[in-house]
């Protein structure tokens, strides 16, 4: 059995997000980090592999910075990695999914795990679209996975407001995972050393057979209108607390 994990290099929260004169986002300012949701996907794959005699392949499509995330996945315990360098597909999830699906056809996985969404763009489409492209079933919002060995995965889904739902889904399948379904391990020194000897296969984008039709286009990017900021209370802690209590009692009448 092989489990593939989709890993994205997401633009990190501290990156400067600025538009140039033509209204395009200046990617030169971007700094990347591994999408947090995907870290949980890697951990889950490694845990499942340990008890089901499976191999784990981590896969990323994106800027060169994505290799860092793949190396981390290898250091955590994935067996091998596949990387497709691709700088300019970020705004269209269908294109991302199409590249990922084309690469996945070479990996032949029974189970594919991915984060439920990316922290920077948050379309929450890519995992499901990959499943559709491959003809796999898909379950989103996964907070627990068991593989009973009968050709299905038993998935615990986290719905809203503390509700949960169990779904048995036929394999092969894509599961998109929530944070909190496990506690991702820190790579050990031994793991980091071992990762250096593991295979990281690079696939040229031009080699992949994929759908290049862009279905959605961004016609304008703009800064959000400034919001009314809070009334900021300043000064020593005792002073601001006294001021706050007065405001809440006398102005707002909520205390």
């Amino acid at each position, binding site marked *: 059995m092989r489990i593939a994990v989709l890993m994205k290099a997401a*633009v990190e*929260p501290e990156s400067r*997000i600025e*538009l140039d004169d033509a209204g395009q986002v200046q990617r030169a300012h971007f700094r990347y980090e591994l999408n947090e949701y995907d870290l949980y996907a890697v951990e889950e794959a490694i845990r499942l592999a340990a008890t089901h005699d499976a191999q784990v392949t981590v896969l990323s499509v994106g800027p060169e910075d994505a290799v860092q995330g793949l190396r981390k996945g290898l250091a955590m315990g994935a067996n091998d990695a596949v990387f497709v360098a691709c700088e300019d597909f970020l705004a269209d*999830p*269908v294109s991302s999914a199409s590249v990922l699906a084309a690469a996945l056809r070479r990996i032949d996985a029974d189970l594919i795990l991915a984060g*439920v969404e990316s922290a*920077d763009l*948050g*379309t*929450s*489409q890519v995992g*499901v*679209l990959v499943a*559709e492209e491959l003809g796999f079933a898909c379950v*989103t*919002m996964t907070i627990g996975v068991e593989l009973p060995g009968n050709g299905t995965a*038993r998935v615990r889904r*986290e*719905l*809203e*407001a*503390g*509700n*949960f*739902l*169990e*779904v*048995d*889904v*036929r394999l092969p*399948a894509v599961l998109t995972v929530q*944070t*909190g379904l496990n506690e991702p391990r820190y790579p050990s020194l031994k793991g980091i050393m071992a990762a250096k000897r593991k295979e990281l296969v690079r696939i040229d984008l031009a080699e992949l057979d994929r759908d290049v039709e*862009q*279905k*959605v*286009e*961004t*016609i*304008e*990017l*703009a*800064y*959000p209108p400034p*919001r009314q*900021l*809070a*009334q*900021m*209370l300043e000064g020593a*802690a005792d002073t601001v*607390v*006294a001021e*706050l*209590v007065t405001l*809440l*009692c006398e102005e*707002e009448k*909520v205390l």
Partner: protein
Amino acid sequence: MSREVWCIVEHRAGAVDPDSLQLFAAARQLEGTAVAVICAAHAEELVGQVARHADRVIVLQDAALEQFTPDGYAQAIVPLAQERQPAAVLMLHSHFLGRDLAPVLSSRLGSGLITDCIDLEWRDGILGRRFMYRRKLIATQRCRTSGPDVITCQRGAFVAAAASQGAAEVETVVPAIDAAAIRWAVGAFDAAEVVAGDITEAEIVVAAGRGVGSAENLEAVRELAALMGGALAASRPLVDNGWLDRGLQVGSSGKTVRPRLYICFGISGAIQHVVGMRDSDVIVAINKDPRAPIFEYADYGIVADVMEIVEPLSAAIKELRG
């Protein structure tokens, strides 16, 4: 108003998710006819909950639609959408329709998909606006495809209108569903435990986030909540790390609260949290990062470490309550 905009109604156990009514407002913003689409095995009870809000109702009724499954819903919706070509198919971004169904519909209709829209506009076609890069930019997007656009709307972004006088016309369609092609077997539904002092019922909510730093500090926040006669709540990180129960989580994957007073400590204000608390009457935010987005939603803000404020505030409340 001949332009049809289909609004897929989210429901569970005979109850329509009331936020589904916001979709009709979104449809009208597109100058379209708001068509409620209900997929169900038994729809009668559900129809009554939307008929005075939508312009028309289509019921897709089949025993295979007893439970939500992406394959079942897609088999019901896709052929009818192909035949009738509505301008768009809308659903809420959270929870399950936006996540599980929207990409499947777009894929099988060959349509474009714009997710988590906060605004929609008709300009020779549909324009959808959504945040990118953690709310630092707003993108205006449109589909380049010819079929019905698939669009998910952020909860709370559109305001549902009051019920109209007349009940909408209801059309029932029996779809051809191949139950064997449904790859999900839906098992147990595990409802959230109903606990006394539920955060959605509290008049005062005191919430803690990643910035509280330690379990010890969290206890101080809990004590403050008790002193104020309020409920303790949390943002997702404190639930993920096991410090607090999932039932206390506020946000898109948790609960929506609208207390008279919401005080939050060490919560930065990610949109996933904000959608669950922004309608509170008075919001007070304490965060050590002066640029934290939570201050854009708060009425009062204090830039400080959590513990600098929790203790004197507890002391002040004790004094007040005598």
